[in-house]
């Protein structure tokens, strides 16, 4: 409660007005010129972590744009949303990057999408726009039709070059050699020594946020599901949580448990996939192939019990669409245990291999301070000693009611730590699934609450823990109950900037391995 008071005190000092409601993020409105200082104080006093930075276009004549900062206050289970209206004649604000280094990307993105400029930001390059539309066109503004055709320019974004004789640049992507998503890396190397990495994204940019505008929640659900294949449940769940948050409803208990099962199933197959991918990164074909076997079997379980290999079409706003029943779920739990046992034996082969150890250990050190500074989340941060997990910090759905579970952390900070992190989490996942299946109420209560007509102008926020970390969704509705602003910030978006700090000084052939030890989604970043 003291923390709660601290936040309230903070809000009363800095904001023009603020709301504190149950089960909703704290909300405050801050003047533009005080924003930086306000956040500085939030960082130092409340230990806030930047969770989301985005902007809104209200589409009205005056005070059209505003900046939206959502902070994670670790001491409370709630988030803090700060909105800053921007004057129409001066769409600038003081860059938050010096305060939160992970604000660099969102600031660039806001510049691309809204034309709102951060002053004194160290990186002024476009983030989303890669010559696909003119520089003076800002897609997320309301007066821009989402369906216009624009000329395409061939651009090669500048990168920070390393000055020094013989230093060269290795371009990787956007078309990668393997079956990998498109991202463009410009790596500064001297021979095989990696000096610096510049990751450029948005080759998967499909304009999801714009497409969602004007749709009802059910229509936008498809977009949330298809934002990223392997984070489908998590993104959908965040979306639904945000919608439910805006509507002020909570899901029935059965749906809450099923959602936990879905989220954990997704985590399970993702972790198995990541383990296989790390082995692939060092050419350990046997472990890769056996990992793929297990992943395939898990996906078949997904398809068999929930109808979709990526668990789509199950989670809907208000609850879930369907579930197989308790007996099949018990059967499913029985199927999962041997898969995990097989995984253990395969991993034992990998870890027992000295080359495997040698490649993974002390490779790609992500220091704890870097992880903290850049606001890393998920297993990657937990492997560097940053204990952060949305399931504990901001429990949602079934995680609120299920008995306590441990979130392991590691302190070796290297690729091996991230590899083992996945392994460490699998028992938790399995236990959660079992507990959820056990606690599933037998009574035939509804599995989905009906979404009431959403009040005009209401907004909601949802955050879930995907296999990669915290995925957040902010949704605001217009006067007709249709989506006015759909903003997503995924774990990959937060974690990608960690990789350049991690790879520096490693050798070039280790970069894919380090990259795979994070195994982040590109589609999630680009949207």
């Amino acid at each position, binding site marked *: 409660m003291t923390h709660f008071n601290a936040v309230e005190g903070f809000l009363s000092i800095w904001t023009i007005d603020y709301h504190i409601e149950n089960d909703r993020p704290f909300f405050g409105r801050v003047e533009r010129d005080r924003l930086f200082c306000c956040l500085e104080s939030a960082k130092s006093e409340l230990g806030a972590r930047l969770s989301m930075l985005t902007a809104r276009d209200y589409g009205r004549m005056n005070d059209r744009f505003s900046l939206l900062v959502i902070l994670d206050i670790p001491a409370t289970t709630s988030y803090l949303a700060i909105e800053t209206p921007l004057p129409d004649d001066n769409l600038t604000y003081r860059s938050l990057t010096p305060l939160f280094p992970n604000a660099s990307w969102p600031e660039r993105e806001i510049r691309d999408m809204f034309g709102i400029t951060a002053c004194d930001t160290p990186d002024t390059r476009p983030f989303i726009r890669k010559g696909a539309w003119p520089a003076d066109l800002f897609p997320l503004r309301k007066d821009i039709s989402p369906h216009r055709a624009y000329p395409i320019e061939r651009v090669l974004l500048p990168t920070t070059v390393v000055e020094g004789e013989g230093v*060269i*640049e*290795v*371009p*990787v992507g956007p078309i*990668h*050699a*393997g*079956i990998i998503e498109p991202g463009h890396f410009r790596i500064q*190397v001297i*021979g*095989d020594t990696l000096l610096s990495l510049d990751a450029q994204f948005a080759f998967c940019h499909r304009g999801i946020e714009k497409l969602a505008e004007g749709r009802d929640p059910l229509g936008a659900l498809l977009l949330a599901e298809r934002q990223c294949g392997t984070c489908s449940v998590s993104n959908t769940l965040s979306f639904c949580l945000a919608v439910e948050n805006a509507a002020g409803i909570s899901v029935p208990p059965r749906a809450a448990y099923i959602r936990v099962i879905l989220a954990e199933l997704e985590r399970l197959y993702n972790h198995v996939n990541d383990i296989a991918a790390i*082995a692939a*990164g*060092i*050419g*350990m*074909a*046997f472990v890769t*192939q*056996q990992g793929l*076997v297990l992943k395939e079997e898990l996906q078949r379980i997904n398809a068999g019990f929930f109808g979709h290999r990526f668990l789509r079409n199950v989670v809907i706003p208000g609850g879930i669409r369907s579930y197989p029943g308790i007996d099949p779920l018990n059967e499913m739990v029985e199927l999962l245990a041997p898969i995990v046992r097989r995984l253990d034996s395969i991993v034992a082969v990998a870890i027992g*291999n000295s*080359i*495997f150890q*040698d*490649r993974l250990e002390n490779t790609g050190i992500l220091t704890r301070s870097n992880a903290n500074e850049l606001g890393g989340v998920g297993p990657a941060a937990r492997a560097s000693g940053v204990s952060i997990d949305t399931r504990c910090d901001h429990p949602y759905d079934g995680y609120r009611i299920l008995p306590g579970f441990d979130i392991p952390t590691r302190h070796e900070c290297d690729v091996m730590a991230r590899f083992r992190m996945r392994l460490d989490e699998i028992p938790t996942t399995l236990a959660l699934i079992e507990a959820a299946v056990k606690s599933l109420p037998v009574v035939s209560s509804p599995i989905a609450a009906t979404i009431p007509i959403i009040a005009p102008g209401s907004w909601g926020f949802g955050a879930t823990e995907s296999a990669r970390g915290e995925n957040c969704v902010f949704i605001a509705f217009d006067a007709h109950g249709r989506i006015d602003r759909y903003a997503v910030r995924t774990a990959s978006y937060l974690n990608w900037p960690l990789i350049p700090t991690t790879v520096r000084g490693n*050798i*070039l*052939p*280790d*970069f*894919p391995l380090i990259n795979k030890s994070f195994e982040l989604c590109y589609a999630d970043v680009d949207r």
Partner: protein
Amino acid sequence: MLTGIAFAIRLLIKIAALAILAPLIQGCIKQFKGRLQGRHGPRLLQPFFDLIKYARKEQVISRETSWVFSAAPLFSFAAVLTAALMVPWVDRSPWPFPADLILFVYLLAIPRFMMALAGLDAAGSFGGMASSRESAVSALAEPVLLLSLLTIALPGGSLHLEAIPVAANSLPLAARAGGLAAIAFYCVVLAEIGRIPVDNPDTHLELTMIHEGMILEYSGPLLGLLHFTHWIKQITLLVLLFNVFIPIGMMVESTGAWTAIIFSALIAVVTFLAKMITAIALLAITETWLAKLRLFQMMDLLGFAFVLSITALLFVATGV
């Protein structure tokens, strides 16, 4: 005249055998590897299908390239073919031209040299990266290759490849020194043919490539030729490994009753095939068992091989 004709016939047989066996062995290795990974694995004849397809494809060539790009595969092929023809397969009768060990080692250096240049030619960084790595790895591999072969050849007193098996057979200590040198040689073979602890032939990551990186720019017939060259090099080194270090079953004399000749030829061919099957199994198991070494740990592997060869040399020199 008669020997000339006999030589020509043998040459043709060998070339035909190379053309058949080199891709076949590649197919076998890949399938066996697949089986070890719990898969069906590609078909045995897949390399042939690939070659046929490459021959029918268009060639796409970068505008940055020079004459080196087209010349490199041809030079490499010619050099590897020459080296391959030197290695005794089933018989030990000397070739009319000397299959000199040093020449063999240096002929194998030609494809590396040419492909390293070809990698640099297209101006992309992956090619350059691969040729730089290839040069670094081969610089370490070459002394071990020479030394491990010398260790076996020296006591016999001949540097001719077809004479080495004879020498190895008659060595009292061939087993000991040969064992060490054989392991060293095997390490080099793995490096030379780009197999797992050194290079990953199945990798899809440009940043980790060595051999693949240099051929990224090739397409169509030239790509097929490069693959074929690589397979010839692979079978040649494998045959050399087995015939030099396990010199059993080879045909010695080609005089005598023709039945005896045919019988010994039959035995030689069967032994040869058995050796190749062993080689396939060995490679596939190695690749399944090990993972790719860190790039600069290649030095350790090849250094280890070098020390092994020196130890073998010590045995040979002291005659213990």
